[in-house]
């Protein structure tokens, strides 16, 4: 996936993966026919990305459970994968859907998309000294749910505001606002 942002290098993701993508499409077809080994290969290839996405979206406490849910759902939905997009793209979108569906059971509710200025200020508190600097990932994890999810989907995963708004059931303007506040908070945790 490539994104172009003014002043930001074009980055990410999966460079030169076409050949591997063909093999994964084949594995997906085999897995759809019940081949457990093919599905395990797909799991091994994608578990880090899926788990990282889950961890960033909902935090570490539920990451293992939800990552498992993603692969279980993928197994049951393999017949719907037609190979029109890369398997990783298909799995990633499925993972987002699983994560968002699980939000309600882990206490992430729609109301949390309201701006939480106090919490953002807490995240934004500039560390007093470099040794106290928070890991960037940890800082993302301390964002309020709404700002964190918008930030992860937009800046880490490359979704557009319209897509995020559709996924989260918010308007694009809210997505933009949450993203800006998340970035403003996280700039305090840049390495110096």
């Amino acid at each position, binding site marked *: 996936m490539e994104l172009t942002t003014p002043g930001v290098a074009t980055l990410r993701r999966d460079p030169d993966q076409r050949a591997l993508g063909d093999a994964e499409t084949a594995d997906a077809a085999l897995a759809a026919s019940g081949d457990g080994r093919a599905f395990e290969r797909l799991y091994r290839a994608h578990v880090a990305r899926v788990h990282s996405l889950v961890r960033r979206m909902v935090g570490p406490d539920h990451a*293992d459970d939800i990552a498992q849910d993603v692969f279980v759902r993928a197994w049951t939905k393999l017949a719907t994968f037609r190979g029109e997009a890369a398997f990783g793209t298909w799995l990633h979108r499925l993972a987002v859907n699983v994560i968002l569906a699980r939000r309600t059971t882990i206490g992430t509710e729609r109301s949390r998309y309201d701006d939480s200025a106090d919490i953002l200020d807490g995240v934004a508190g500039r560390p007093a000294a470099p040794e106290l600097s928070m890991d960037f990932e940890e800082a993302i994890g301390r964002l309020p749910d709404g700002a964190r999810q918008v930030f992860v989907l937009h800046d880490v995963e490359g979704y557009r505001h319209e897509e995020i708004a559709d996924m989260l059931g918010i308007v694009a303007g809210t997505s933009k606002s949450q993203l800006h506040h998340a*970035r403003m908070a996280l700039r305090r945790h840049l390495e110096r």
Partner: protein
Amino acid sequence: MNDQWTERLSEYLDGELAPAEQTALEAHLPSCDACRTTLDELRRVVTNARALDDRPPAADLWPAVAGRIGLSARARTRPAVRRFSFTVPQLAAASVVLALVSGGGAWLLGRRGTVPKRSDFVSRSTAGLLNASAYPGDARFAAQVADLERAIAQPGRLDTATVRVIARNLRIIDRAIRSAQSALAADPGNSYLNLHLAQEMRRKLELLRQAATLAGARS
């Protein structure tokens, strides 16, 4: 720092400001140190976000996933296309049939001096299984496939439902083989793809051998 442009810096960074707003902000930036500093920091946040490394879970989740989707240890190590089971007498009979088929083919070649026409061996119901010519780069593999296909192509050896199952699984395997071959054409040195192709070719032979065994057992 909090001027009228502060809240718009992310939109500017993302190229989402209207042209007139973008022009106005760009006119503002040279005279505003705070906005320039903030813009640079926001840009670095975005760069950091895109550079995050993916990390696997601390513990392997596969055993739990496999358990939840009902993959037994056997299913995890053997492809699901193995759906036939045979008794010892069936296997013995099948080996005899295979030997006869192979020997018969050799005898025919020696006697006629020509390769038998495929139509001599192939029933209409199994015609769709024949695709050995799809692998011109591996003559030995193609020959093995052709031998096995002839063995299962005898009319009446396999019922229509069985043929359909075999054909469906072969299509899946053939698709995997074609994908691997296509990928290897672009990246011939890719060891994963070579291994994957070899696995799929073995898988095809294994399926055809089982089908031939089944055909022999039922003849």
